[in-house]
């Protein structure tokens, strides 16, 4: 009877997660969807606590309380600009939990009793969970700038990673065969676990900052797969269902991100894109024209239509409130203002949307790339704020550019372009940007926030 109640609760939780994902993908219902997901989780946890196998509750409660407290404080305290690293870290601990579950199951196996299916599931879950954990910690380090964000490469890197992967697979195969007959093999198991942790770190190293959206979505998929793997180990269907749901959403987001850059997942992970700065002669002999705050303010104040193109630089300089003030000031003068959002702008999928929403910018002003591009011909001023590669016209016109084929925001088609940037340095892809040297372009050399403050000041006197 009790078992039936628990199983029914798990069924309800699985259904709740499906509804949660469904509702999370529509703006009107998203918040409710998240609550449904949380309720499903609560039901699953409470039902599990009813389990007859549980002999003592102290340790469980300690874990539940400490984990919830840490999670709650982290979720409350983290600034919106730190969301990418926050999401990375949450991915990591989720993968880590699945890894620990598989590990605990492994040490309890008895020789002669463990079936091959369970053993294979244990190995897969341990490895995927470990890669998710260490990979996410590494991604966190890069996003938090504890580790350089640029691609880190060294000789024989990919060959080394391949050898690591092969060693892990061989160890796993050995463990499956040997454990089935003679019981757990601690030394090779810990070696496999250790190598998987190393692999997780090593495969993130050559992935650069601007490719982070792909990476975070991929780690999200991994954390789902690890949870599903734990379900195979424990023969628990709600784990399998939930893990599969998360895995598919992670894979889908990974694909969307890759399409938005016109690159494959393989190229992102193994390409060390942007490792070599090839900003060479392209800019030779050309001069970018600077602009001062008062000229910029005049240009903006007398425009009819202004499109702002935000990028990672906006997040770095934490200028989301200043950009909202600029929008408000311009709208008060009757200027129509919209924001052009590139799908991979920032460091995680949807980064710009979250950042601008935090500053109370209504989301109907945020326009997707495909919709804003035809409008740019009729735009008086495009303001490029901390973005670079996503507005590089070479992506459209220069087949030799590494960016060629990537869909971009056509800022260069506006009548005037103001680029707010600290220097002329190339973007992440290491490619010079034609846009900076066009006759219609003016460069405002400053940190994003400082530039906006100065333009806002100047606007008062226009």
């Amino acid at each position, binding site marked *: 009877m009790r078992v039936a109640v628990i199983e029914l609760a798990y069924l309800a939780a699985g259904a709740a997660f499906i509804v949660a994902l469904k509702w999370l993908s529509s703006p009107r219902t998203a918040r409710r969807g998240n609550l449904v997901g949380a309720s499903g989780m609560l039901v699953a946890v409470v039902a599990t606590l009813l389990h007859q196998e549980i002999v003592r509750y102290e340790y469980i409660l300690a874990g539940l309380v400490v984990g919830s407290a840490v999670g709650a404080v982290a979720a409350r305290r983290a600034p919106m600009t730190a969301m990418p690293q926050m999401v990375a870290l949450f991915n990591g601990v989720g993968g880590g939990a699945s890894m620990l579950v598989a590990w605990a199951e492994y040490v309890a196996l008895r020789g002669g009793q463990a079936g091959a299916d369970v053993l294979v599931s244990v190995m897969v879950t341990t490895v995927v969970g470990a890669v998710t954990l260490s990979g996410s910690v590494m991604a966190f380090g890069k996003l938090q700038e504890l580790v350089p964000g640029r691609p880190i490469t060294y000789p024989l890197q990919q060959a080394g990673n391949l050898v690591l992967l092969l060693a892990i697979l061989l160890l796993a195969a050995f463990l499956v065969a040997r454990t089935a007959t003679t019981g757990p093999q601690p030394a090779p198991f810990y070696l496999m676990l250790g190598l998987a942790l190393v692999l997780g770190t090593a495969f993130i190293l050559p992935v650069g900052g601007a490719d982070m959206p792909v990476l975070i979505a991929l780690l999200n998929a991994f954390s789902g797969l690890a949870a599903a793997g734990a379900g195979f180990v424990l023969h*628990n269907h709600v784990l399998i269902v939930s893990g599969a749901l998360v895995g598919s959403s992670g894979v889908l987001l990974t694909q969307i991100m890759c399409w938005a850059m016109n690159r494959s997942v393989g190229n992102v992970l193994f390409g060390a894109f942007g490792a070599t700065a090839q900003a060479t002669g392209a800019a030779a002999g050309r001069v970018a024209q600077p602009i001062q705050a008062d000229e910029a303010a005049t240009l903006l104040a007398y425009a009819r239509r202004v499109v702002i193109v935000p990028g990672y630089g906006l997040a770095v300089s934490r200028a989301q409130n200043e950009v909202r003030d600029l929008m408000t000031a311009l709208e008060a003068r009757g200027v129509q203002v919209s924001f052009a959002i590139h799908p991979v702008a920032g460091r995680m999928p949807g980064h710009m949307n979250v950042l601008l929403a935090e500053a109370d910018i209504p989301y*109907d002003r945020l326009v997707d790339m495909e919709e804003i591009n035809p409008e740019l011909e009729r735009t008086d001023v495009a303001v490029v704020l901390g973005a670079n590669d996503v507005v590089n016209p070479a992506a459209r016109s220069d087949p030799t550019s590494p960016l060629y084929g990537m869909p971009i925001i056509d800022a260069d088609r506006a009548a005037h372009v103001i680029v707010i940037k600290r220097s002329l340095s190339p973007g992440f892809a290491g490619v010079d940007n034609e846009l900076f040297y066009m006759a219609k372009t003016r460069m405002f050399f400053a940190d994003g926030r400082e530039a906006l403050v100065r333009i806002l000041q100047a606007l008062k006197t226009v």
Partner: protein
Amino acid sequence: MAELLFALNIFILATFVGFEVISKVPRLLHTPLMSGSNAISGISVIGAILIAGEVGDPLRTVLGVLAVTLAMINVVGGFMVTDRMLEMFRQPPRGGGPRPPA
């Protein structure tokens, strides 16, 4: 073996359901969808609870308690941070579209 095939069936079907329900997600919701689904991956907490509640191998207890803690960070942190983001997405009462010049 039958058990494994049944589990694989469930896995495959759930994957398709996942693709189906979120295939039309607008870009606006990419981050909340990711962090919300991320919180769901903390479901391994239920496996961890059973392990942490046993009396026996102390190593298993340590691993179980650690897993409960990590999974709960994932679950509580994930759902709360998603809610915080979605709260910001409420349409401010300023109404849609730019206002005409005064």
